[in-house]
Structure formats: C-alpha cells, structure tokens
C-alpha cells in the first residue's frame, strides 16, 4: 500500500483558537476513508491542510509522498458539497471546460445524461447535477478523490449508483477521502476517523466509532407522558417510533424518573446510533 495522503501530528491555530489539535491521518491507494465530525469539529481545516491550501502551525502534511504543491493537486479530484459546477452553463459546456483545464478529452456521457447534455445545469435535479460533478471530478483519473457529503439529497437508488462510481475509482487504485456526518455514507467506507473539537475522537469501523456508548431505550404505551417527564427532569430524550431513547443515559435513573411519575414501561440498554455518538461528543 502506498500513502497518498499522510498527515502527521497536525496542529492549526487561529489566534488563541486551536482548530486542529494533533491529528494524524493517512489515506492509502484503493481505500475509502470516511472523515466524520459535526460542524466545527475541524474537518474542513484538516482537509485544507492536507491539500496544501492552508499551512499547519505544527506537524507535516504529505500528498503523494511530497509537498502538497499545485502539480500534486492536479492529481486530486474534488467534489465539494456545492458541487462546483457553473450552473448557468450546460452539462456539455461544464465538462468541456473541465476537460480543457485538465488537458484531457471530455468523457463519454451515459445515455440519459447525453440526452440532456445541452441543458443548463441549474435546471437539472440534484441527482443529475451530482452525476455531472462526479464526471467532472473523475475525467482526469485522479489518484485521490476528495468528496464532501457525496450523496446528500439523493434517494436510495441514486445513492447506490453514486457509490458504484466511487467504488469503481477505488478498485482502480484511487484513494478516496469522504467527509460526512451521515450514517448511510459512513457505512460505505472501509475505515472511519471521527473528529471532535479538533482532535480524533475515535477511529476504525462503525462499531469502533460508536464504541461502548449505549442508549437507554424505553418501551411504554404512555410514551407521550414519558417524553414529558424525562424532558422535565433535564434528560436528553429522543423519540424513535413510539420508543424513547436516552443516549448515554443511566437505565436506573431513567427507571426511577418514570416510576416516580407513575409511567409504566420496560427500560433496556441498546447500542447507541452514530447520531447519538455525535450528540454525546458535543456534550449535550
């Protein structure tokens, strides 16, 4: 394996604020790495350092084994959350522009996109726009793909199709770095790195990321009143169907609050969800 991205002990301070605080991250060829974190966790700052757009206060960032120079950046394919397309140009014009920029031929279009190649991008649905952005980012066969919430706003089948494309690039040897905070995207990655407050909070598989965090689950016919009494007692409680969930809660305490209020139900401990992990890291 070959490290395409190799950031070591990276620190970035803005005045007295430390946005990235001692983070190391590697992406190797052929692997899909998910970088997870809530807003303000430091994901974007880290990404900018790794791509050489921002210099670190301390630590080293290597891209393709060297400094992250402009030449190195030409081997990166990037799909930002805003997609980075010229929305007042057509599909064909967007791709032709990108092709000239990279000095490659415009890629062949799949039939359904070919039929719409003369349409203005702004008039296409989010799903089509995403596919055009993927074609634009992949046409020069980048060694590293950087994707920011690549399937946001897309339905199940559309999402599956986009992941087919991402996996095809990884199978061809590209490394892929995906920033996301969504479970369905995290599930598709080979390896996950979760940031919180500028540091790496957890690393590994989805199971490793959620770790030992449990949620207390309450099944009760009287869930409306259960929600009310737990909320009034200052417990962070959510609703899933007609079950109540208390991430990181103490089952004995939850049971006591419900009993005191005369709410009957069964209380059990369940593994927390990814979202509940985010919430517990944010200190809610």
């Amino acid at each position: 394996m070959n490290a395409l991205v190799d950031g070591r002990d990276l620190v970035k301070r803005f005045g007295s604020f430390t946005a990235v605080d001692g983070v190391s991250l590697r992406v190797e060829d052929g692997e899909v790495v998910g970088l997870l974190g809530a807003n303000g966790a430091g994901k974007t700052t880290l990404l900018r350092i790794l791509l050489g757009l921002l210099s670190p206060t301390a630590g080293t960032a290597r891209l393709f084994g060297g400094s992250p120079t402009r030449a190195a950046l030409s081997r990166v394919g990037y799909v930002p959350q805003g997609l980075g397309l010229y929305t007042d140009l057509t599909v064909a014009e967007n791709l032709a522009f990108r092709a000239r920029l990279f000095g490659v031929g415009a890629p062949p279009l799949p039939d359904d996109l070919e039929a719409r190649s003369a349409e203005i991008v702004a008039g296409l649905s989010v799903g089509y726009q995403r596919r055009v952005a993927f074609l634009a980012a992949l046409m020069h066969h980048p060694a590293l793909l950087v994707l920011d919430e690549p399937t946001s706003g897309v339905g199940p089948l559309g999402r599956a199709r986009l992941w087919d494309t991402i996996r095809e690039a990884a199978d061809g040897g590209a490394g892929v770095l995906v920033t996301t905070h969504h479970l369905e995207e995290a599930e598709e990655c080979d390896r996950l790195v979760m940031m919180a407050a500028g540091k790496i909070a957890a690393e590994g598989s989805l199971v490793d990321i959620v770790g030992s965090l449990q949620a207390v689950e309450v099944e009760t016919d009287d869930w409306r009143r259960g929600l009310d009494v737990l909320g009034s007692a200052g417990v962070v409680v959510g609703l899933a169907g007609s079950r109540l969930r208390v991430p990181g809660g103490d089952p004995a305490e939850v049971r006591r609050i419900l009993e005191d209020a005369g709410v009957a139900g069964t209380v059990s401990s369940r593994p927390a969800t990814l979202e509940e992990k985010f919430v517990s890291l944010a200190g809610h």
Partner: protein
Amino acid sequence: MSDWGLDSVTVRIGGVIALDGVSLAVAPGEVAVVVGGDGAGKTTVARTLAGLVRVAAGTVRRPEGRRVGYQPAGSGVWPDLTVDENLSFIATAFRMGAADAPGRIDQLLGATGLATVRDRLGAQLSGGMRQKLGVAMALLAEPEMLILDEPTTGVDPVSRHELWRLVSQTVASGTAVVMTTTYLDEAERAGTILALDGGRTLAVGTPAEVRRSLRGAVYASDHPVEGAHQWRRGAAWRIWTDGEAPPGGTPVSPDLGDVLIAAAFDAHGAAAR
C-alpha cells in the same frame, strides 16, 4: 380523532404526473416520513397536504386552512428579517392576538435554543439554526398537522438531533407530523414510512411492514454477478433477486436501504439493471 392524509391521490403538474394514486394516513400524535430521491414526489406530497396543489383525482384529508403548519423546502425563513421579525410576521399573518403571540414566540425560542439570537438576521443564521426557526414558524399557530419539507438536509448531526427533539415534543402534544427526508435513519424513527419513486408508491407502512414488503431476497457477495440487480455495500456487493440465489451469494437480513433499492429495481424491471 380521524386520520389526516391522502387517499389514492393523483397530481399532474404541467401535464406530467407528479403523484400517481398515492395514499398515506397520518394519525394525530404520529410522525409520517416521506422518503425518495429526486423527482420522487416528496415535495408534491408536502404541498398537497398543505393545500397548495390541486389534485386531479383522489381525496386529501387535512385540517381546515389555518390548522396546518407548513415549512417549505429551504427553511421558509426570510433572510432579511431578524429571528423575532420572522416569527412576528407569521403571528400577524395568522392573526394571533397580542395576548397570545409574544408568549408563544418566547416558548418556541426557548424550545429551539434560538432565544440568544432573536435579533440576528435570517441570512446570518447557520443552516441548523435556520431550519429550527423554520420549524418554529410552522409551529407558531399550534397546528393540528405539521408538514416539514426536508428540514434536515445539509444540517449537522447535533442540530438534526435538536430538530427531532422538537418534532418529538410536537408529536407528544398530539399533532400529526409529516416530514420528507432523503435520510433513511430518520425514516426508521417514523410511525409510518411512505417511499416514493417517480411519483409512485414503492412501499408504505411501519418500518417493519416496509421491510417485510420486500419481494424476493437480498444476498451479499464478494464479487459482482453478471446481469444481476446489484449495488455496492462497502467493498462488497448486494444482490437482489426474486429467483434463484446468485452463485456464491450469502443471504442477508436487508436493512431499509436494501429494501428500497430492491423495490426500485422491482418497480423499474429490467430497465434499471
């Protein structure tokens, strides 16, 4: 109390069928989640329930005009009004009296955690804050049915959790909630899921009923199978078939994502292969 919802509703927009015989029942004190991709018809369902769309066929059961709270896609917040002004404007539009409106506004600002930013312009709110304000605006007149069009798209997980907490409290007070989303983990938390594809119903029911509605079976495979209905799951493949097991495939217990992808293949037939 009777259910709200749609009975075999068909909607045509500019001659194109946007909804094709879609039914959805939403009980008071329950969340119904509408999922689907682009052009699936999610927004049309929300707008139809909000009374903004004329139906070509079928029946819409909705509370009388002012008893419906509707948040359009993109939050519905006016960017050049402050948080307070956005809420006051709605209060005026709903003819809420000076006796009720300020107290209700304070209550919602507390519930959404927006009390500290009440003088901030809508344009200067973070995505999560803007969506919470949009929900507060839709809730202001204490609707019997609350309709939220993609309130969590692009919202960070902590704000998303807070939005769901607000939805939970609303449901607990007996309001019927309908929300659209592209995130299936949200659908798992709903009482009822309506999955749409190109204006047609792929599946409808409780999360468990939707999972059981799958025809055929889903297999995991470490290699693709020629001509199969398949998609990637991590480094491996998932294969759906209503016939023989694929060579080397291991049957898996499908999650909601698998079920809806398989249902879309089933609906599209061989064309989607």
